[in-house]
């Protein structure tokens, strides 16, 4: 019985269907990036279990998401390529190759679920241990003078509504109030009600309102905006505001993540709409930043950050971080991503480092080594056998 089940789960037929599905999803998802941008195509095709309706083929053929295809492939590989496969010296290469592919899929799942990623912008001479996410907006709620000063986080995915008319209500233990989040816009700016581009009758608070902006395919360029109502437990609105970044002519004029303060029942709270930030267990100080350009051009040849890593115990270690040469340390990896190429030489410049925590950071490397070894064994033994046969009976053309 178990054997029959393994045979079905691990069959070649399923494998082929999965390969073809992966090809289809990859192609559709690649072309979709032209219009949707990477973030949306990731969400629709590559990290989803089922492709949502907007991504169906020709609008009416449903598709499974890449996540579920890979999950089924994992089972299929395990059953057919590892457990059921005949094991002898001829198939050893294949078994190794299949195992390595299991490792790759597992690495993908690990980074999908556990990978944290953000960036650090450090000026020369300064240090930081805070990493800011590229994309996800969060509402941070804190009672600065309270007994518990921890920051409560509400993620954008929780208040990301389909239409601005919908309201999401949040309440956390210990809060003497509920937060009602409404009017969500993926990309918006704060403006006054006098702004001629604002729809008449749109909601406003103290003369300020949200002006929706075109949603950019580059998701990191979008800046969320919401209306916030603070309601006490008796149902009375005690405070309201509009939260977003103030943008004029494409430039952020005022950071909208300055906290909005309100008092409920004699306690003072602050809420801000900001990109999610997190701390790493060490600080990085940018000692020097160097950029070299090709002569006569503005094309960067090389750029590198000379940094000092400061441990919690105060000990210091010096590193260089440059393209293709990240700093790997205590489970974190810091990459040279970008830099200030506007400031004239001599001025303090900043460097942007991407910081990633990924438990499966090096798994693909191990998988690759195994896969190469496995495939080499398989195909080389085949080649040797073929050549031997060819030597015995040369083809008669």
């Amino acid at each position: 019985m178990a054997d029959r089940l393994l045979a079905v789960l691990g069959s070649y037929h399923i494998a082929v269907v999965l390969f073809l599905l992966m090809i289809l999803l990859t192609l559709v998802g690649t072309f979709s990036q032209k219009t949707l941008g990477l973030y949306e195509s990731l969400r629709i095709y590559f990290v989803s279990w089922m492709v949502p309706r907007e991504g169906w083929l020709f609008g009416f053929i449903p598709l499974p998401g890449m996540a579920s295809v890979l999950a089924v492939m994992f089972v299929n590989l395990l059953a057919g390529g590892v457990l059921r496969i005949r094991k002898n010296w001829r198939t050893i290469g294949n078994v190794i190759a299949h195992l390595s592919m299991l490792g790759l899929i597992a690495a993908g799942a690990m980074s999908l679920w556990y990978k944290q990623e953000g960036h650090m912008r450090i000026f020369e001479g300064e240090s930081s241990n805070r990493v800011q996410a590229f994309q996800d907006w969060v509402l941070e709620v804190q009672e600065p003078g309270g007994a518990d000063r921890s920051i409560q986080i509400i993620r954008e995915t929780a208040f990301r509504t389909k239409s601005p008319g919908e309201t999401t209500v949040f309440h956390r233990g210990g809060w003497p109030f509920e937060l009602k989040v409404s009017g969500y816009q993926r990309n918006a700016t704060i403006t006054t009600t006098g702004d001629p581009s604002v729809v008449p009758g749109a909601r406003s608070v103290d003369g300020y309102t949200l002006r929706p902006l075109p949603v950019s395919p580059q998701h990191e360029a979008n800046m969320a905006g919401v209306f916030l109502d603070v309601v006490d437990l008796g149902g009375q609105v005690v405070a309201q505001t509009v939260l977003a970044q103030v943008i004029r002519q494409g430039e952020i004029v005022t950071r909208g993540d300055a906290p909005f303060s309100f008092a409920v029942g004699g306690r003072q709270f602050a809420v801000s709409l900001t990109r999610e930030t997190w701390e790493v267990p060490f600080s990085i100080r940018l000692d020097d930043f160097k950029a070299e350009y090709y002569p006569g051009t503005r094309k960067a040849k090389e750029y590198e950050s000379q940094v000092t890593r400061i441990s919690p115990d105060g000990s210091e270690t010096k590193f260089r971080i440059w393209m293709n040469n990240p700093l790997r340390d205590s489970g974190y990896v810091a990459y040279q991503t970008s830099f200030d190429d506007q400031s004239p030489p001599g001025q303090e410049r900043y460097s942007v480092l991407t910081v990633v925590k990924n438990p499966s950071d090096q798994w693909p490397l191990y998988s690759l080594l195994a896969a190469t070894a496995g495939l080499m064994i398989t195909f080389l033994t085949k080649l040797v056998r073929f050549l031997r046969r060819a030597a015995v009976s040369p083809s008669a053309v």
Partner: protein
Amino acid sequence: MKKAPVIPAILMALAVAASALYFSSKARVAEPARRFAAEQLAPEWTKEVIDIMERVPKTDDGRTKSLHTFAYYELLRNRAIPSVRLSLEGGGSRSLPPVGWFLDVLFYPEVANRYPVFNVEDSDALLQVGLNPHDKKRDKYAYEELAPAREQLIAARTRLAEVPPEKQSRLDLQINNLASNVIRYEELMHFLDFARQGVAIPADFPDEPLKSKAGTTVPFSEALVGLKGSETFARFMAAARSGDRSPMPELLQKIDLVLRDTSRISWYAPPTSATPDAWVPAGGLIRDYLTGGPHGAAAIGQLQTLEKLAVLAADRGKNGELQAGVAALGQGLVAAAQASNSYKKVAMDRGYLKAGLFSWAKWGFTLLFLLMAVSWLAPSSRWGRGLGRLSLWGAVAGYGAIFVGIGWRVLITGWGPITNIYETIPFITLMAGVFALGMEMLFKNRIPLIVAVCCGAAGMFLAGRYEAGDAADTMPSLVAVLRSNYWLWTHVTSINIGYATVLLAAIFSMIYIFCRLFDITRQNAALFRMLTQSAYGILCFGLVFSLVGTVLGGIWGNDSWGRFWGWDPKENGALVIVLWCLAVLHMRLAGWIREIGLHVCTAFGANFCLFSWWHVNLLNVGLHSYGFTQGLDQKLFLAYGIVSLVVLLGVAVKVLEGMALKSGRSGGVAGVEPGAG
């Protein structure tokens, strides 16, 4: 042995098609009817002058190359071919090498402006900017003819800068290119204006010695020396240093204008110990002189040399002196480059372009192709066998030339064999050829050999077309992320070997499909077996290299961008090839496909290869921006169409034979499928 005459027939047809292609491409670059009187033209530059000037180093786009390379691509960009041939009145012609043309533009702009060097693909582009085009749709125009529409061209270019590339029509692109070319040309054309025209000293200039020359025109170098030593300049600089933004004195404004105009031509001042990599532009010399920069000391002497040469050029009677002067200038620059140790690569750079190895390989393979077509008319005769052996050695020599060409480039750039899209073409051609020649060693039946010869010819034609279409230096400087020889030699090469092998497997499968379609040598099971073994074996190699290359790419991405896999279009392209190879191998194991099915699938794999090699570059999204390309959509879809047609033919063969087998009409068909190897 009855060899069906179909193969020679196909080959002859292909040969005719290839030569038609060649002659049509020649016809399209035919010279216009315009003829020049010999006395209208500038005196010819002597061989010595050309030879010396070709070796002069020139920094362009961040790379120090030979002046020959610079002039070659400058001309290629404008003209689509890198030389100028002028028809003379009373018959005959005069051809100008790239550097000859370059020197004419510098020293005799009034003559060079009449050379037909601007290629206009579609005369409608000229109508749009208000010009009367020639009768021919595609023709070459002189600067003189385009100059009246200069303002419209530049206005159109400014307007198009706002339009995203995918929304620009074909004509828009042409107008844009033409405007850019005209602007680039003008920079060359005006380069020596300062030396020819001098500077008119403003009437109110207060300081000696220029005060006494107020209102007259003096040589540029004299005005520069006078200005530098004047009170007026000292006051202005002191004010500027203290942050005062007072307007420039009039004389400085004039000099500043020259400084800007001459800033792009950076062949002039060799590096110094202060700036070891920089060949500063002539404008930089002037700036350094005024501000006390590292090249300031040499500036006046060098500017005076150019002034002297410009005066000599104005007098045809002094041509001998001009030639000698230019040669001396060139020799001085070469000597300076040799002294600063940057000359070796410049010489190699010129040598590479002059050798034209890829072009030799292209015509060599074309010739071999014709030879082989002839030898197949009577393959077993003595001369047929002789031609066959000759073809084998010819193919080895052709691929040797490609190998040397790639190696030469590696030595010049110092980077792995592939750093841009152009370089993928010779590399993939070489790899396909090496595998095909390996198959020939194994099977010795001339089929892999003809595949190798066809691949060589096709690849080198493609490289030539791409170079002419792109019309830019094929060794541009690398963006920071690519500057890693470790990854260039591992990831990039294995991915491209993957492309080469998957394409080669597809070619063997296509041959199989044609053989089955035309029912060639139906008794020859060995031929079919050989084709199946080749396609299958090469596909396995394709899988190994694609998989290893793709995962290596992921590891590189994990070290440069912070993620192993990001579903970036170029990554996805590589993944699709891996998945397709896996799908084909598993379909065979699952019993979905046997022999012809395998070939249909392998042939179809070429489409995925085209997708990954070319198509994803057209999308203009993702992190692999250094590979973005434009304007190949139509050609790409034509290629997809051809591959798909062959695949459909394969499916048709299968269906037809299946039907024939069922109805039992033909007893011989059963023998055609010689077992799924």
